[in-house]
């Protein structure tokens, strides 16, 4: 068989991609490339434009400007859009399962939309129910499910068409830790099978674990991008020293620590020191504040996120 020519191409390529609703610009000229087989993350505060970007990728809303190529098809024309929709699975942020049908019927109807026959749809639905651990609830009505079960049903539904690209908009919101880890396992399993994943999440640990590369959006623009570890090292430092001072006024940074500290940030109850040499800095901090609790930790994506998008809730 001839080699699949599309496999070499990027899964998604966006250039100056824009989306506006009347006068309001929700996505303001963003560029990104998603490679086949990778897990690509979109992070950003509420209203940043993540869902809008996802909806453009899976062709539920028209593009207002720029160009967008998904799985080798230029988005925009009806026939191309159908081909894209055929190959993309979607787990939406909002629950839109069909409340009048059972879980199994929900999946079966979706399978039919992807061209499966009645028999194929039945088999595939059973597989999917098993995959998300919902076989016992197959015949339950959607409203009899717990919130987390609904999300799992949505994930199963997103896989109905055996997608090449799976778009997951906050898939783990509302899941218990157990279910979250189960889902991560499943996403890893999908990745091993060469599926491309496009993910948004508000859990930074999740993004760090799952995403090969990610972008951070704010107010419709991409404000940072890269591999999680690279992003951390570039945007913040390798380590953070936390100095817990309780409710008292934040202590000033002593002069001996200033060369060690690249940036400091005062929160209501602690002082954060972004440092490259963690060992030296924690030793100096412990010497200087023997009566305060001092802690050394690795920087996380959360530090990057907060630095870039601002600690709005604290301000």
């Amino acid at each position: 068989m001839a080699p699949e020519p599309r496999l070499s191409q990027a899964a998604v390529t966006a250039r100056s991609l824009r989306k506006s609703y009347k006068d309001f610009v929700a996505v303001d000229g963003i560029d990104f490339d998603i490679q086949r087989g990778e897990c690509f993350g979109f992070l950003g505060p509420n209203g940043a434009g993540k869902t809008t970007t996802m909806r453009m990728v899976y062709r539920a809303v028209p593009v207002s400007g720029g160009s967008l190529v998904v799985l080798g098809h230029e988005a925009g024309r009806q026939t191309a859009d159908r081909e894209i929709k055929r190959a993309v699975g979607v787990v939406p942020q909002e629950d839109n399962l069909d409340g009048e049908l059972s879980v199994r019927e929900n999946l079966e109807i979706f399978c039919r939309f992807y061209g499966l026959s009645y028999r194929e749809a039945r088999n595939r639905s059973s597989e999917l129910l098993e995959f998300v651990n919902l076989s016992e609830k197959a015949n339950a009505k959607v409203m009899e499910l717990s919130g987390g079960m609904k999300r799992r049903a949505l994930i199963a539904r997103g896989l109905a068409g055996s997608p090449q690209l799976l778009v997951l908009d906050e898939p783990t919101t509302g899941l218990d830790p157990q279910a979250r880890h189960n889902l991560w396992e499943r996403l890893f399993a999908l990745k091993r099978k060469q599926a491309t994943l496009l993910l948004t999440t508000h859990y930074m640990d999740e993004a760090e674990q799952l995403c090969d590369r990610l972008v951070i959006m704010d107010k419709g623009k991409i404000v940072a991008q890269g591999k999680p570890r690279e992003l951390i090292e570039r945007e913040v430092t390798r380590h953070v020293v936390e100095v817990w001072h309780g409710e008292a006024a934040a202590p000033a940074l002593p002069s001996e620590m200033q060369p060690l500290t690249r940036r400091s940030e005062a929160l209501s109850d602690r002082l954060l020191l972004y440092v490259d040499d963690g060992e030296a800095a924690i030793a100096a901090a412990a010497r200087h504040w023997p009566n305060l609790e001092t802690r050394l930790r690795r920087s996380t994506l959360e530090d990057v996120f907060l630095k870039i998008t601002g600690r709005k809730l604290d301000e």
Partner: protein
Amino acid sequence: MRLPRGGESVSGMNLPGDINLSMALCVWRRNFTVYRHTWVTNILPNFFEPVLFLVGMGLGLGVYVGGNMRGQDYVAFIAPGLMASAAMNGASFEASWNMYIKMYFSKLYDAYLATPAQMQDIAFGELLWGTTRALIYGAGFLVVLLGFTLAGRPILTSWWTLLVPLALALIGAIFSLMGQWYTTLINTIDLYSYYWTLFLTPMFLFSGIFFPVSDIPGGTTIAWFTPLFHGVELVRGLCQGPLELRHLGHTGYMLAVCALLLWAVPRRMRKRMVK
């Protein structure tokens, strides 16, 4: 689990207006599945309403009208029109409240739009379903009329009755499309009460179901503009004859309106839902 296998081309016949028939049939199938669960609770009120009219008006009022409805039995006079109105109601419920709920409350169409389906396919699928439902109600009524006929009432007196289901489907299609059109215009579900009280109910009363429209001044002219009138005349002609050239006119009128709306409504739906 097998993965990924996706990416085969979207198959299925494409109708004019880029409507994909297999996607539309998926929407139909979903509605049929729901209907299978609920038909017992659903069919009774919808089915009994026209039967009540038939019994109440036909037998009750019929005592006074007697055989004076142009020499015809009153039950026999109103029965075909009531059948047409049953079809109208079945289709109208689907294209109004039910569709609005799927558009804005249950977000079902958002879910479908993430599949290969486009909004015009969904609208067309709903049209097929609305037509089916019209056919179910009309056909149920037809069975009742058959009973009345066998019991001696001169209701179904022509073999053309066999074509009544086609007329019912046409009525279903036209009212599905008009309901969908109205649905694309409104911003709150409460506005359907206007559709009913200002449009469907007057039509029910003045489309020649209960008395010939020519008996009120200007009645014929006004009636010609309302789709139900043509439906009533067509069904009555098929049930009781005689079929005349004007029945072709009634059919042509309804087909033309359907064609026009079929061109316009899926487009409007798309504009409304895909922004």
